[in-house]
């Protein structure tokens, strides 16, 4: 892979600096929660429900308690604490009924892990297995309720809408225009269904939490591998009925998150165990298997979409229904569902549209945020539908998209009007389509000719869009202090869990203050007692909000420096400029001071000091956002859209179904590159992760809703050998007027629509429309052999023609 040369117009912003944490990480010096040990620390193991749904008849923990070295044994009888981000629906320990194969039935803290595990094996539980809710259809029938108490669950009112006596954790809606007329008066109406399974995040470091609960006060000390220190603080305070300040959260280096470490996970369990063990620190560490079957996933999803078009290629109406299989708990799943109602028709101009998005409880492993936050899933629906529409209309898929893509002046689904500052979907599509040399779809004759060689090539592309899914009042902040050597120490509340936050923000600070990036000291480690507030490190929002906070803090720092320098140089601060770590008089550059001279206060030759240590801060809050109207979904939820497109060329071995990805071209209108190396890394990583969803990954459940692939043996993710032969990143820089240097976020976007582009390329290659992921070698071969042109399900049982 050859890196494209990118030239920035700025001295620091845009430069391909090495990550600030690179050396520490590659030399093994970086410390993770996994590594931490404390004097007297206990280790926990959990007993998980062996059934997707069962009544706990009795639990006998006496033998476990009697085992030497065991310090605490807990069951659901010991605590009624409920947790949840938006719905308080999850017991820390099951009581009465288990809701998925992975619910914690009992937990042990002991002097070492082996003893804890031995104790767990001594716990005797009598279960009465109950018939589980298998899928969204059964859940929607509502004969069995996963949460009998759904009507009473405490939730975020007005934003999420649990339905009475049902399995619907939230039903979010949006609508505009007159869909009925559009459908009845248009030339063509096409209806399709697309689906995809749950997949795992697979961070290199599994979830780990250590909690020390002070037995003499409400104080909780938490060390955890997490993306959201301040959200953990707030939810822990809420769930345990204590004040936020009682909770201190420490985040050391984090070995990957991808959304799976947003919110709260093992911290409440570790807290209960620490309390039960007299306040000893307790470490709860998920095994890799628990990472798959206990910790949450990306939800499975089924999208049903109906679109009306006119023969000239104008989309006139779109109706989408998204059913999210969120498993046993709502977690971030309800917010993923909510996001679909304002982003779920893609970056298209559609006057008449409606979206119904239901986050649904079943007895599967529960769901949470995952890179892209529902957009990979909704775009799988939209971008395959758009391709099928272009097939039916006989219009080139590039022309068809170009005719309908959003432009300045157009309205998004929620009624927000785009401007020239919003970025350009068309620029992205045009760039990638050019890069892969698109000349139109393959003809049937060309396909047949190629088929004889056993290998068929295909090209495809897909659009994507995403704005941060965040509350209207989302905020972040930065504190800057100057060290005695004129370097700047910067503290943020967001977590760098691999995305490069500290490096990118340091570059913005270096640019503003005009000092070398090496002079910015910034740590990835977070301590909520010291670091300033950040809402959550999610949603690709940090460059936008955090970057602006850094700029504000830098301005304040410069103003304060110039105030002191003005006195020292006996001039109005207005006359002072700064460059290269120095402050100088604009008309007489010989009158100058270094930053170092004023860092801790300026000292006159006679020893008198003025000023004092330089400290500055910057806060940044989403501006002008609103909640969505509960019925129409109208409002302004999007602080900043990032549009993008992928185009791929693939080769399919028609006998084995193996897909070789020859080339991926990916363009994103990111406004301004902040760090070329980091954005390139994000694109390659996201494309590969998206490729996993496209051709490989997926949870498999048996008829008892037990996970059949709870380990790396059968739950695979792409490896080095699976990287596409060529990835071409394209940075489009139409500036965002209120973004730092015009920049927009791009952390999640590279993953979105990779499956859609591959699915469209598979159509080009094989002439078959696949409606379900993954497009595994087996799925492709069975699809080919079925002789069908439209594949809705790739299980052998769904393709009876094969037998």
């Amino acid at each position, binding site marked *: 892979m050859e890196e494209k040369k990118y030239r920035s117009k700025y001295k620091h912003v845009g430069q391909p600096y090495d990550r600030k944490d690179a050396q520490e990480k590659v030399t093994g010096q970086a410390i993770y929660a996994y590594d931490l040990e404390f004097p007297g620390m206990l280790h926990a193991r959990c007993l998980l429900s062996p059934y997707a749904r069962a009544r706990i008849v009795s639990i006998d923990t006496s033998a476990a308690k009697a085992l030497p070295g065991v310090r605490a044994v807990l069951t659901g009888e010991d605590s009624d604490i409920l947790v949840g981000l938006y719905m308080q629906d999850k017991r820390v320990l099951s009581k009465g009924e288990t809701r998925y194969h992975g619910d914690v039935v009992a937990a042990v803290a002991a002097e070492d892990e082996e003893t804890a595990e031995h104790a767990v*094996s001594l716990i005797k539980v009598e279960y009465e297995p109950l018939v589980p809710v298998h899928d969204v259809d059964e859940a929607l029938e509502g004969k069995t309720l996963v949460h009998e108490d759904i009507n009473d669950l405490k939730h975020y009112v007005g934003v999420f809408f649990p339905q009475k006596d049902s399995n619907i954790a939230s039903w979010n809606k949006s609508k505009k225009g007159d869909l009925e007329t559009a459908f009845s008066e248009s030339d063509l109406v096409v209806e399709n269904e697309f689906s995809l399974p749950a997949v795992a995040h697979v961070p290199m470091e599994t979830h780990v939490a250590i909690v020390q609960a002070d037995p003499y006060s409400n104080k909780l000390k938490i060390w955890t591998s997490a993306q959201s220190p301040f959200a953990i603080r707030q939810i822990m305070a809420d769930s345990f009925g204590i004040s936020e300040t009682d909770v201190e959260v420490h985040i050391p280096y984090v070995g990957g998150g991808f959304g799976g470490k947003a919110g709260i996970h093992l911290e409440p369990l570790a807290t209960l165990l620490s309390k039960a063990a007299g306040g000893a620190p307790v470490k709860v560490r998920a095994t890799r298997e628990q990472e798959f079957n206990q910790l949450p996933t990306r939800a499975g999803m089924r999208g049903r979409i109906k679109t009306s078009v006119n023969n000239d290629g104008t989309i006139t109406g779109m109706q989408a229904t998204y059913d999210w299989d969120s498993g046993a708990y709502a977690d971030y799943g309800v917010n993923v569902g909510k996001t679909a109602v304002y982003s779920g028709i893609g970056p298209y101009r559609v006057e008449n549209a409606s979206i119904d998005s239901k986050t649904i409880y079943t007895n599967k492993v529960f769901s949470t945020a995952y890179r892209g936050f529902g957009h990979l899933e909704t775009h799988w629906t939209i971008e395959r539908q758009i391709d099928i529409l272009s097939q039916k209309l006989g219009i080139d898929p590039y022309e068809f998209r170009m005719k309908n893509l959003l432009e300045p002046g157009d309205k998004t689904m929620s009624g927000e009007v785009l401007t020239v500052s919003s970025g350009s979907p068309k620029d992205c599509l045009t760039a990638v389509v050019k890069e892969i040399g698109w000349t139109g779809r393959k003809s049937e004759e060309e396909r047949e000719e190629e088929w004889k060689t056993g290998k068929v090539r295909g090209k495809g592309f897909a659009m994507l869009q995403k704005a941060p899914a965040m509350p209207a009042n989302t905020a972040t902040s930065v504190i800057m202090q100057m060290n005695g050597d004129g370097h700047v120490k910067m503290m943020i509340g967001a977590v760098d869990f691999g995305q490069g936050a500290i490096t990118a923000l340091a570059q913005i600070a270096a640019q503003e203050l005009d000092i070398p990036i090496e002079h910015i000291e910034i740590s990835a480690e977070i301590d909520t007692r010291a670091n300033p507030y950040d809402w959550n490190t999610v949603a690709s929002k940090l460059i936008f909000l955090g970057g602006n906070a850094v700029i504000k803090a830098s301005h304040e720092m410069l103003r304060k420096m110039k105030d002191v320098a003005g006195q020292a140089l006996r001039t109005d601060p207005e006359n002072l400029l700064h460059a290269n770590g120095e402050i100088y008089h604009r008309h007489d550059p010989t009158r100058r001071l270094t930053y170092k001279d004023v860092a801790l206060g300026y000292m006159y030759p006679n020893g008198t000091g003025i000023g004092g240590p330089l400290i500055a801060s910057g806060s940044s809050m989403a501006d002008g956002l609103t909640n969505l109207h509960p019925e129409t979904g109208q409002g302004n939820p999007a602080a900043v859209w990032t549009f993008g497109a992928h185009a791929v060329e693939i080769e399919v071995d028609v006998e084995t179904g193996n897909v070789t990805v020859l080339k991926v071209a990916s363009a994103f209108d990111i406004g301004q590159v902040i760090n070329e190396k980091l954005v390139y890394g994000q694109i390659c990583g996201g494309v590969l992760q998206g490729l996993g969803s496209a051709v*490989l990954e997926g949870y498999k459940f048996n008829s008892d809703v037990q996970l059949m692939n709870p380990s790396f043996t059968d739950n695979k993710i792409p490896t080095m*050998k699976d990287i596409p032969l060529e990835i071409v990143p394209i940075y489009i820089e139409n500036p965002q007027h209120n973004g730092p240097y015009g920049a927009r976020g791009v952390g999640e976007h590279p993953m979105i629509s990779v499956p859609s582009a591959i699915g469209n390329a598979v159509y080009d290659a094989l002439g078959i429309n696949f409606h379900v992921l993954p497009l*595994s070698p087996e799925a492709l071969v069975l699809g080919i052999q079925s002789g069908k042109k439209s594949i809705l399900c790739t299980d052998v049982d769904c393709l009876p023609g*094969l037998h």
Partner: protein
Amino acid sequence: MISRFQYFKPHNLSDAVQYLEKEDNSYVLAGGTDLMILLRRNLINAEHIVDIKAIPELSALEYSNSTGLTIGAGVVVNRLVDSEIVKTNYPALQQAAASLASFQLRNRATAVGNICNASPGADLPPSLLVYDALVNITGPHGDRQVPVDQFFTGVKRTVLQRGELVVSLQLPEPGEGDRSIYLRQTRLRGHDLATVGVASRIKPNGKVAIGICAVAPTPLRLFALEDKINERGLNKETIDWAGEEINAHIRPISDVRSSALYRLQMASVLLKRGLLNLIGEEE
């Protein structure tokens, strides 16, 4: 790990055999790449672990014209991958070795362990089968030699009796003009178990041998199919026919890794591709 076990590291074979015979719930540790998984998932209750890596004669990887190739029970898979002798004389075995798991695992996993674990999908057996490998076994009642096609008795089951230990594998010298190839289908290019693996060999006398994994409770040598192919004479038409015929000789199941239907298809494709490659008529 629940198992609390005695760890014993003997320095000669007889100590190992004696210990294995004497103690209940004894398990042999060579590379440990399969044993550790069983322990970690609490699938076995090991009371004794006998580590055979310190027994000198087990580390032999030797070739001579009279005895062929000897692979000691301590020989790790990467040694087969890196061996010029193996690459030149037993190409299918070298290819199978190179495809097994990941580089790191191949540095620990042993070839003999791969057969003793007796997984239906193990990568090395198809190649060992087509080379008529012999399994040298020692035990409390002396030594014996079992052809590898009689070594497997079921899923994760072998002919080994209590106290018995595989000392080595022995592959007869292939002879001038011998050709072989191992092809496997997996779910991704990286580290994966074989969905199906097929070793094809053409012997110097022109006769074919076919070994296959992941299509039956044990790895199989397809003698009946070989006879039919040899009767017809090896050419493109026969290979096309064999691609169909192979499905009558295997009994794959559907599991989380693959449907039986896809395994049948892949057995057919991999056999055809392997044989065509060997006769120089690649598709």
